[in-house]
């Protein structure tokens, strides 16, 4: 079992310069995520939540502030950190097994260990029997399961999820949220979920970070005390949901309609 990672963000600031004009995507974002914690980040599109995730993943190295994983500053991408993108980003020319195996390209495991790890993760996401299928033959939900298996197969300390279920229909989304909760409990690693679905954020998160745009910053952090595994209609969850939605109601109607 992987050791869960401890992530610390200190005063993150991120700017883009376009035609000489700088605009700030993230400003003064500080957050401490305990090992094994599940943190959800919600906000409207454009609040910089996905950018934040890309910084943590190491896909973008130009920012001010500090990002520490277990006390060490991040440098580029690493197999210690896994990511699931909104689009599954599976390679269409590889089967399910080979797509997952691709993640092990630079892992120290032996051939036999790799095979075991792949099979184990196929089972973890419940895709037994689809090992030889090509991505084109899978539904959206199944593809996203493969993407989760691919992100976990290296046994990362921390898993980043960038609106992973955003493109799925409601029924599949609910099912995969429950699956993710189970996987998180089994793996015991740190997870950060970026989403614009408030219910999803609350259902899964130990804490829900509410962000606001222009510039992107943390508005409020809402703890969700209900123990895992959770059920959807838990009263405490419903109360937290009201309180989080209240945050968004304060914003202008215009931004809300944009997010929808």
């Amino acid at each position, binding site marked *: 079992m992987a050791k869960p990672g401890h992530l610390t963000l200190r005063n993150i600031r991120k700017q*883009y310069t376009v*035609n000489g004009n700088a605009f700030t995507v993230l400003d003064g974002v500080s957050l401490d995520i305990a090992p094994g914690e599940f943190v959800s980040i919600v906000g409207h599109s454009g609040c910089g939540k996905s*950018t934040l995730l*890309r910084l943590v993943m190491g896909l*973008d190295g130009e920012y001010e502030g500090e990002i520490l994983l277990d006390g060490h500053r991040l440098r580029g991408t690493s197999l210690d950190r896994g990511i699931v993108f909104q689009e599954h980003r599976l390679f269409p020319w590889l089967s399910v097994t080979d797509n997952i195996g691709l993640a092990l390209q630079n892992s120290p495991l032996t051939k036999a260990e790799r095979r075991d790890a792949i099979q184990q993760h196929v089972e973890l996401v419940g895709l037994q029997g689809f090992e030889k299928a090509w991505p084109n033959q899978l539904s959206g939900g199944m593809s996203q399961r493969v993407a989760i298996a691919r992100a976990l197969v290296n046994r990362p300390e921390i898993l980043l999820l960038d609106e992973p279920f955003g493109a799925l229909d409601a029924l599949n989304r609910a099912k995969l949220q429950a699956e993710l909760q189970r996987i998180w409990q089994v793996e015991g690693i740190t997870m950060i979920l970026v989403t614009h679905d408030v219910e999803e954020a609350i259902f899964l998160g130990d804490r829900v970070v509410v962000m606001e745009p222009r510039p992107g910053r943390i508005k409020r952090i809402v703890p969700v005390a209900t123990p895992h595994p959770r059920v959807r209609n838990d009263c405490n969850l419903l109360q937290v949901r009201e309180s989080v939605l209240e945050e968004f109601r304060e914003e202008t109607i215009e931004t809300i309609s944009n997010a929808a």
Partner: protein
Amino acid sequence: MSVQVIPSTPALRRAAAAVAARTRLWQGLALPVAIIVLWTVATSANWVDTRILVGPWKVVETAWFHLTHHVLWEGLGYSVARMVSGFVLGGFAGLVLGVLLGASRIGDRLVSPTLNTVKQIALFAWIPLISVWFGMGEPAKVIFIALAVFYPIVFNTYEGVRSVAREHIEVARAFEFTRWQTFRRVILPSSTPQIFTGVRLGLIYAWLATVGAEYFLKAGPGLGNIMIDGRERFLMEQVIFGVTVVGLVGFAVQIIATRLETRLLRWRTRSNA
């Protein structure tokens, strides 16, 4: 293709691209300039036999001579006129047949297999037959060019009409469009991009066929004559000039075709942005 982090906003990428484009222009010119310099040095220092490879200056002189005499312009006129007639003839036939085959399942089953088989006969293999049937003169040349244009246009039109989204056809049906209205308002506009791909290819093939026709069906004036004449009299400079003119016309045809396409299909890029 870099593995490094890629700028993640489109605007940022565009700004970087603009700077890079200017450098690229100079880099792109490096090789042609180097070739011309090498060519000049090699011929003036007598590294190569100037009977085989004439100097650039000689080519420029010949070019000037031709550019100021009517033979070139007449030849160009004939060639372009031929190309245009062949293009109109073959393009029209291709367009009509492509629409018919694309819109009618019966027509498709009836004609397409034969057409696909006949297409496999390499274009220039028709030349001997055409020369027997139509002689070496203008009609034979125009027919050959028309044949060259016909294929890309008929197949692209067919593909375009076939790939009209069923959803759009359903919209037409919901509004009770007549067959003609459906064709005019839905099928034609939505297959235009693909038809234009065919037109662009058709223009390129038209020029190829024009040059080919002047080669194989020698009779009558045309641009090809300058090259053929140059080769027969072993005037390297005239041949180089001829090749350049053929290339330039081909280039111009491509540019015109691409410009036309982007102009007429502005809606496509806008909706994608």
